């Protein structure tokens, strides 16, 4: 009995695993090609097999992509733009997350006349296409003197992100019974001390979700970056595009590949470090006391 069961079990499993492995390979093959190519020199790329491992692995392409590849007229590699992106992403993520947390806290726990309508209106912000706000936003940035600045880009990302961050936090906090806020009010805590003492400590999962979401969105943004940045304030996505499109002499595929990995590395890293919280946060229900 248990024997036949085990056999059927194994056959089924084998098929499932084979399918899984096939699709996993299919999905990972571009990454494989990108990585192997980035460690080859240009001779080997021209002559060799696309799928082969590098004969003599070299860091040449990585060093060039980081420090000396040409992005348009400058030839300083991706490094300056990497730091631009960092300088855009960190404040934009933090500010939009904090505002979202406070918004969500108010909309869930300090209801007022019309608060549900306000939330509905905010939700609408999640569905506004980027293209629609390009022109008015650029006029606004110009009037504020923030055109082509890092601060301007931070502001755009914060405003665009608030709808999402508010949605995340509001839905997380609305599941927390209002008795908790009432009890804290009677205990003498005010608006902010209730937030910091009662709500913040139970918010780790939703913070992780929001930060990952915002980080990925803003780091990967191209459209806002290309429209609102100046020559010295471009984010890495725009620089990557310029790097690939600038060819001095022949096309250096190895440098392009290394540059692509450098541009994608931070988001990958964020998922690896915080990914398990991401899943936990998305599935976490109400906090039961």
């Amino acid at each position, binding site marked *: 009995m248990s024997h036949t069961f085990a056999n059927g079990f194994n056959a089924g499993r084998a098929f499932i695993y084979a399918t899984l492995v096939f699709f996993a390979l299919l999905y990972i093959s571009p990454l494989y090609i990108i990585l192997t190519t980035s460690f080859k020199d240009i001779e080997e790329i021209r002559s060799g097999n696309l799928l082969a491992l590098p004969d003599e692995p070299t860091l040449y392409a990585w060093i060039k992509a980081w420090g000396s590849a040409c992005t348009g007229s400058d030839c300083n590699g991706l490094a300056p733009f990497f730091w631009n992106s960092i300088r855009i992403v960190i404040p934009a993520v933090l500010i939009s997350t904090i505002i979202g947390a406070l918004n969500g806290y108010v909309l869930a726990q300090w209801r007022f006349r019309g608060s549900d309508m306000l939330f509905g209106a905010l939700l609408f912000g999640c569905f506004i296409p980027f293209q629609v706000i390009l022109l008015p936003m650029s006029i606004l940035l110009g009037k504020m003197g923030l055109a082509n600045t890092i601060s301007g880009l931070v502001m755009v990302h914060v405003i665009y992100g608030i709808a999402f961050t508010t949605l995340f936090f509001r839905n997380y906090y609305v599941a927390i*019974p209002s*008795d*908790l806020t*009432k*009890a*804290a*009010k*009677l*205990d*003498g*805590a005010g608006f902010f*001390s209730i937030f910091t*003492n*009662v709500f913040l*400590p*139970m918010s780790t999962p939703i913070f992780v979700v929001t930060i990952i979401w915002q980080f990925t969105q803003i780091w990967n943004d191209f459209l806002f970056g290309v429209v609102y940045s100046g020559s010295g304030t471009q984010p890495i996505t725009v620089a990557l595009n310029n790097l690939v499109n600038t060819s001095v002499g022949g096309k250096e595929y190895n440098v392009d590949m290394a540059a692509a990995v450098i541009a994608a590395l931070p988001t990958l890293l964020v998922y690896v470090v915080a990914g398990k919280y991401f899943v936990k946060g998305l599935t976490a229900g109400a*906090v*039961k*006391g």
Partner: protein
Amino acid sequence: MGAIDIINVTKSFGDTPVLKNINLNIKDGEFLILVGPSGCGKSTLMNTVAGLEDVTSGQINIAGRDVTNLSPKNRDIAMVFQSYALYPTMDVRRNISFGLEMRKVPKKERNQTVDRIADLLQISHLLDRKPSQLSGGQRQRVAMGRALARSPKVFLLDEPLSNLDAKLRVEMRMEIKKMHKRLGTTIIYVTHDQIEAMTLADRIAVLSEGIVQQFGTPYEIYNDPANRFVADFMGSPAMNFIECDIEDGRLIVETDGQDYKFEVPDRDVLQKSGLKRVVLGLRPEMITEAKPDQKRQFTQEISMLVEETEPMGADTMVTGLWNSTEIQGRVSPEAGHAAKLNDKHTLLHVDTSKAVFFHLETGERVR
């Protein structure tokens, strides 16, 4: 000093009135029980006293001071919620001391208070745990501890025991009663448990549809209900209500094919009222097994066709028809057993000395 005066308090959510002109004067140190069906506004009334909801109109005084526009933290009130509402990320110690912390009580003093209260409630061994690591009864104690920590003027308890099992509920009920005796703090306590209401209360306020139906001692509420609603709501099993014709100040009751004329103490009242028909209210314990040696004024022996018997342990409920209305009597288990065997026609003893009467349409008392 913690007298509470609730004066003409009205509360509406949008266009929906929830509290309608509530007037209650609760004396310092009194244990007030608020009862009423679910959705009648008990929690809303508690919240207005606590300051968690604004009143639409009216005034609330605590210890003679108008607190109507004061925020919750300035009313010197502590509340125990049905859900306990313990802070999930804080350990028991911090849950209890949080109110003191917010009021800037020095740490040393806070710890002393927590230790004293933990000792009192026998939760000293739980101080380092999180609420999620506690049983229902333990959570209930912590919620009580949090309320006790600040020694407030007034305690508000909103169905504090309704999430506990029956045995624990009885235990905690006694503890709350003892605690009230010792501390003498004014308490407003919401419950829908009859026995909780009768055993704990100095006075009971019966609420229905946002209106105080009656405000009185447990004795008054039980024996002298203001209207049919109160009579029906208080007491378990519920009072019997029988529509009867009045004849010469006596009540005509037909049962088991026979007409009886019940003599009642309020004969003049019935005669003067000029009513032809009235609703007779008679508690089940006034209908017992026949007691031939206990014939007094306002007692009557009748024969009833017992349709059902329902043993409850100490007593057995017997069901029959009076004027085509189902009524219940409360007899000894032996009499109940006999009623089942005896071809079901059973002699019963009816005591009408505590009978009450209600208007057919309005349900108000005829007095």
